[in-house]
């Protein structure tokens, strides 16, 4: 399972009701269902991935995240998860607020655009970054709203969104040794290529 999925799992309570936005082939949802008795739905637009997820016995609904979450009532879910889709939607700020309308908590992961490799790519080569976390060329990338740890935290502050946890991970093999992990913790905006946040509407006791 992907690193950010493993971490997302830590923040999802057993037997809770979860909405997975951009659930892909349902890997995370299937894992949560089998191991934590979690119930819920996945939203996805990729045809092949939807069929793959349906074949796993999951509840998957075809929907474009750009259409918003108006079909869901307030507080319909315990947690809403969105792994690496925030940067690909038309209005990430609107969606983020909508996520916290339909669920008490949101777990969001996104590629950190301020990762040192990206900075080098742009700063020295003068080219749009292409990396493991961002494997597209500028002209065909679905990632139209890339942001950094700092950007995301600014957005949260503007909208009184409370950050419960933050995690920084690296997709690359190098990032998995203890030294690198410690360093990433010190300077996530520079060293981590994937950001994981657990947020809620307001601070809870």
């Amino acid at each position, binding site marked *: 399972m992907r690193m950010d999925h493993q971490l997302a799992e830590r923040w999802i309570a057993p037997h809770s009701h979860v909405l997975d936005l951009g659930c892909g082939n349902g890997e995370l949802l299937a894992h949560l*269902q089998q191991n934590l008795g979690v*119930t819920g*739905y996945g939203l996805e637009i990729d045809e092949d991935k939807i*069929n793959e*997820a349906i074949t796993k*016995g999951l*509840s998957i609904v*075809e929907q474009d995240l750009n259409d918003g979450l108006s079909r869901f009532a307030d507080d*319909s879910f315990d947690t809403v998860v969105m792994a690496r889709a925030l940067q690909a939607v038309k209005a990430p700020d609107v969606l983020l607020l909508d996520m916290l309308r339909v669920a008490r908590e949101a777990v969001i992961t996104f590629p950190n655009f301020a990762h040192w490799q990206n900075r080098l790519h742009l700063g020295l080569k003068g080219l749009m970054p292409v990396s493991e976390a961002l494997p597209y060329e500028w002209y065909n990338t679905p990632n139209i709203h890339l942001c950094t740890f700092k950007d995301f935290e600014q957005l949260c502050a503007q909208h009184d969104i409370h950050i419960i946890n933050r995690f920084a991970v690296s997709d690359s093999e190098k990032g998995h040794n203890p030294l690198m992990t410690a360093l990433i913790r010190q300077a996530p905006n520079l060293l981590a290529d994937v950001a994981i946040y657990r947020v809620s509407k307001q601070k809870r006791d």
Partner: protein
Amino acid sequence: MSARSDSTSEHSPNHAANATDTVGSVGSVGIVTPQTFHFAEPLTLECNRTLPSFDLIFETYGTLNSDKSNAILICHALSGSHHAAGFHSDDDKKAGWWDNMIGPNKAIDTNQFFVVCVNNIGSCFGSTGPTTINPDTVNSSQKSTNKNNENSEPQVYGPDFPLVTIKDWVKTQAMLSDRLGIEVWHAIVGGSMGGMQALQWSVDYPERLKRCVVIASTPKLSAQNIAFNEVARQSILSDPDFKDGRYLQAGTYPRRGLILARMVGHITYLTDDAMKAKFGRDLKSGKFMYGYDVEFQVESYLRYQGERFSENFDANTYLLMTKALDYFDPTRDYPLAVTLESASVKAESAEKELSALKVAFAHTQCQYLVVSFTTDWRFAPERSQEIVDALMATGKPVSYINVDAPHGHDSFLFDIPRYMGAVKGFLTAPFIANSMIAKGARS
């Protein structure tokens, strides 16, 4: 209606040959023979009228396993029949209406599942309906109650056949299930009006199905849907040959009315783009004839479809089927609880609809797959999404796909890989235990 089950005829082409295909290759179920069950008990219908007894004709494909857990029920649409797959004889040119869906290694895999398709009462393909002899007109000497029938000539029901509903059909299908010894269906699958039956099943007999596949359907007809049905009915009713529905006795047939009804219906099954692609403004003779004969290809096509349909369908059945569509409303037995109106005093009608559906779906126990098609304007994707939203709002397991297909409402009869793949995947996926259901609604 009966067909030979042997396939040894020397001009046997490919029908039967595929039936015994080895695992892995997609084939036909081969030659099939319909069966008929007689139900001697009286059946009280939603309209409060009673049929003294009735017949159901059905076909089965595949083999029922020992614990009877692999049965899938197929519900047919307006003009459909029990003949969903395979062929009736060696020289039968036309396969069953859903042959691309049902067969060895197809989406509904007959190597794995025992598939049943039943013709609904009120239809004209073998189950009791308007073209069946009305028992009230048989042996008037034995039936003292029969006063208005002077001659003892048995008469068909004709217009005297009671109006039946989707709920009535589901009830008879449940009776068939009992007779077949199938306590719980692995799945119930239907497109269009068939999807309505599948949905009604999940509401009326929640413990008797594990999966429900609702394709190109709707939670209830819109005013526009009913309007089109009314035009179709008026076409038939206003045909001088209709004779108040007693055309068979009168030796006439409301052919023109039935053709017109089908032409109107057929337009709603297609799309502007599909008709443009198929016919455009092409002229049959290449020039304007300045008359009312068939000139444009699309006119020719519609007339042909109408004529062909009128030869194989009964006018009273058509009337009755369109009424069954109009009446369909799975929320009817579940009056909206006042408490559900919640704080909003003036709930919008869409909200009310959603609330009503939520009440109806609250006690369902199956997993759903809902499928719509992007170009379907008869039962548009939004209508399928109403079903999905109500199910999600009650915490029920549901998957939904909106398949990009150019054929409009008719798309559900086409072999579209993505659509077939989803149905196959859903039917073979592990059944997620009722944890989701136990959860229930949150909102």
